[in-house]
């Protein structure tokens, strides 16, 4: 698949506070990327930098092999953006917001916009401030998709939405977009939402990208290991990749990434009385990665 966007050595600080440094990510066409991180880890900052809303301190951004500057604007024709709180322009009507945005995009598809309104049960004359949170999100989605973006960036848009809305939104739209070739970068702290749709995971933590891996590979390679010993567990299992380690008397539990048969054999050398190896949910994987 062709490379759509990549960053090289991206760094950003707010005053003395380092948000992240030396960030290298790559997005390829038609995939859904999950950008995970605790609150305040710089997900919104990264997205704003990618969208040219704020400048990076250093580093490069390339879109389709062209280097971008902070003042580049043309590539945004192909980038849809749903911000964290897309609830501004409340005085406008639904149709006015669409018309306002249409003025910015050469590739605006008016027919698609109308189709999306119908699909989302939105009425052109409805005032935005009277819409529910879920409907506002649908409206922003319609705005973003009517421009037929090659890359859709969602900055934690589903927080505060009810579960059915989040489910519909994710299931119906995101997967459909990815299948049609649109790249999606989805930032969220509600990790479980990404479980069924995400292809690739990024985890930002303490200013570093601590995970940059295919979702399936992460799931395959991350294991929870429950151990029990006759006496106290050994001081160390002597292996790397232990994300979390908890002890409770003779019992011990670890999360290991990447998991391998060699590591299992190494554990067996300590002769545990119990050895259970289980897969983890995405949320558990995320918690394990950011626990340290």
């Amino acid at each position, binding site marked *: 698949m062709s490379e759509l966007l990549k960053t090289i050595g991206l760094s950003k600080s*707010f005053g003395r506070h380092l948000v992240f440094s030396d960030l290298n990510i790559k997005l390829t066409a038609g995939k859904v990327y999950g950008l995970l991180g605790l609150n305040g880890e710089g997900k919104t900052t990264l997205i704003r930098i990618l*969208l040219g809303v*704020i*400048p990076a301190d250093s580093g490069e951004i390339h879109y389709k092999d062209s280097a971008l500057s902070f003042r580049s604007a043309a590539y945004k024709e192909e980038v849809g953006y749903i911000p964290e709180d897309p609830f501004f*322009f409340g*005085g406008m009507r639904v149709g006015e917001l669409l018309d306002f*945005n249409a*003025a910015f995009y050469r590739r605006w598809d008016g027919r698609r916009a109308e189709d999306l309104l119908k699909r989302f049960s939105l009425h052109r004359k409805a005032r935005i401030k009277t819409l529910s949170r879920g409907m506002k999100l649908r409206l922003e989605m319609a705005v973003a998709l009517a421009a037929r973006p090659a890359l859709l960036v969602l900055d934690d848009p589903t927080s505060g939405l009810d579960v059915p809305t989040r489910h519909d939104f994710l299931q119906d739209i995101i997967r459909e977009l990815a299948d049609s070739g649109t790249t999606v970068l989805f930032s969220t702290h509600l990790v479980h939402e990404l479980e069924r749709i995400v292809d690739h995971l990024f985890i930002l933590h303490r200013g570093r990208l601590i995970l940059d891996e295919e979702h399936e590979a992460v799931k395959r390679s991350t294991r929870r290991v429950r151990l029990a010993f006759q006496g106290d567990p050994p001081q160390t299992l002597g292996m790397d990749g232990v994300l979390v380690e908890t002890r409770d008397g003779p019992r011990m539990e670890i999360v290991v990434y990447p998991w391998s048969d060699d590591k299992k054999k190494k554990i067996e050398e300590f002769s545990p009385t119990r050895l259970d190896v289980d897969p983890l949910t995405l949320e558990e994987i995320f918690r394990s990665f950011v626990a340290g």
Partner: protein
Amino acid sequence: MFKKMIVKEWKEKSGLFLFALAVLGLFFIAFSAYTQDKDALDLLASTLLLVFPPVFSLLLGASGFSSEFQDGAWAFLFSRPVKKWRVWLAKYLSLLTVLIAVIFLFVLLTQLHPALKPAPDTFNFPLLDKNVSYGILAFVLPLVLFTTAFSLSILSEKTYVVAFLAAVVWIFLQVTVTLATMSLYDRGIFSSAFSLISILSLLFPVSLALASLITVNRADFSQPKRRAWVFTKSAVVFILASVGLVALFELGTSKFQRERYVYNLEVRNDAFYFATERGFFRFDLAGRQTEQIARHPSVWGQMSLGGDKLAFVSYHFTGKWRGFAGLRIMNSDGKEERSLVGTENQDSPLYGGFIYPVCVSPRGDKVAFIARYVPKTTVEELWVINSDGSGLKGYDLGIRDADYYLFISFGESNRVLFLVCTAKIKPGSKDRRAGARLLRVNLESGHVDVLADQIRKPYVASMPPEDMASGAGRIAYIQYDEATSRDVLTVLDLGTLEKQTVYPEDSVTAFRWNKSGDKLAFLTASSRLGVFSFAEGGIIQMKEITGYDIRWPSEALEWTSDGRLILRKLEGEVSSICLLDANLTEQKAIRLPFSSYFASRIWSAGQYAIVEDTERHQLWGVNLETEQWLRIY
């Protein structure tokens, strides 16, 4: 994009717009309620004019980006596929349409309501000895404040904070530049304080707008401190650049132009003299050479020739605008230059004064001058001194509304002095007829006679001074005649004090004595050229002239030494001077060596005619026989 932005801003600012309408409506009702109470109307009108446009402009401008910060829409806008400066510009222009609409309604109100209708003509706000007009208050100030507030709106999400900050910044910049400019003006470094302040007042909001644009284009909008820092840094750079450029331009052009500008030109048979800020020059007709005869900086080229003496006023700055003037004298060949009197001596009655103008007697033995703005309680304005520096004597002319004086000549063997006094026209006065007075000062008794009044430009001209010295001279002037509403050419006989109207049939726009003082040529309002002869006691020639350049009549006419007349002609871009014979028939046209839309006065001396290229500040002379041009300066 611009169109949609305008619609968006109008929707978002509809509340503010309606508020403005409500305020205007309330004023309208208030004006209607107090139509009989002039004091209340004045107070309401002042409040409306001085408060409404600035406050509305500040609030509207301040809401620019502040409103986008309030709901986080700035990130959404900046993520659209359009350059950030275009977003800035689109917002600015969109809000500007709101401002223009409100100002239009405001002007409409002032024009619709009878109580406010005279406002554009009469409302003036005093500032720095000038009147700030209704136009500035209604149009320029709102635009300046709106731009300032809009530029600062990128700094905060609180509209009222931005509006207040914009008002403070504007007042600070305005006060600072005013004080600094006035201080430099007082020191004589700048020559035009008010225009500089005006230019900078417009450049400051432009500087802030550019700083705002730079900030939008470069700064991280998610960091308020960083944003403020980039804005402040850019604003300081642009403001300093504006100040620097304006100061350099002012210093460069005014000094350059003042140095080159030909202020004054006096003609003799053998030479003529002219002054620039660099000093005084003499062009020798026989030798065809220009020589600088004095290097003292002049005050508007003030000089006078009499006998074999040339007196002039020099000036030297001492760090204060009211520096020290010096009256100096030298022989007409530029030799034996010396000081006659100065204003730097604290014991002198002229201490700290300003000398302008100056007049040398026909024999060159006395010098008269006007000294004004003397800080002491000196009431004398006219002073006469012998050309050897002795016998300084002051005269109180008793004219308190004098604007400025022009000397005509000494007369009756230096016993009297003729001069013209123009009157100050009160600010706002429509009385354009307020003319000048012709005065005769008896230098022995100090008695002042007003010989004529209502004198119109070009004010006055006398016979050649040498001929007037005997006391049998004549003075000609154009006087407004209330009975016929005409500007009539009048000649005053100084011996009998009889007045003779030369041509009562029409208004006269310009006139010129011939070299021997026995003929007067004049131009009328209906483009006729006439010649009056004193020897023959009447008009000897009268002819309608067409095709000549008499747009500035007082500059258009001159006599040659041999009694011919010179007029200017402008055909397309080609200017010529034309010689007319005694029958007022054109003899020849000599094309000027430069093209100039603006006519300059023509002087003649000997076989030469001299014209100034007023655009390039050059003097050219032409030999009327050989038609060869010579650049004199």
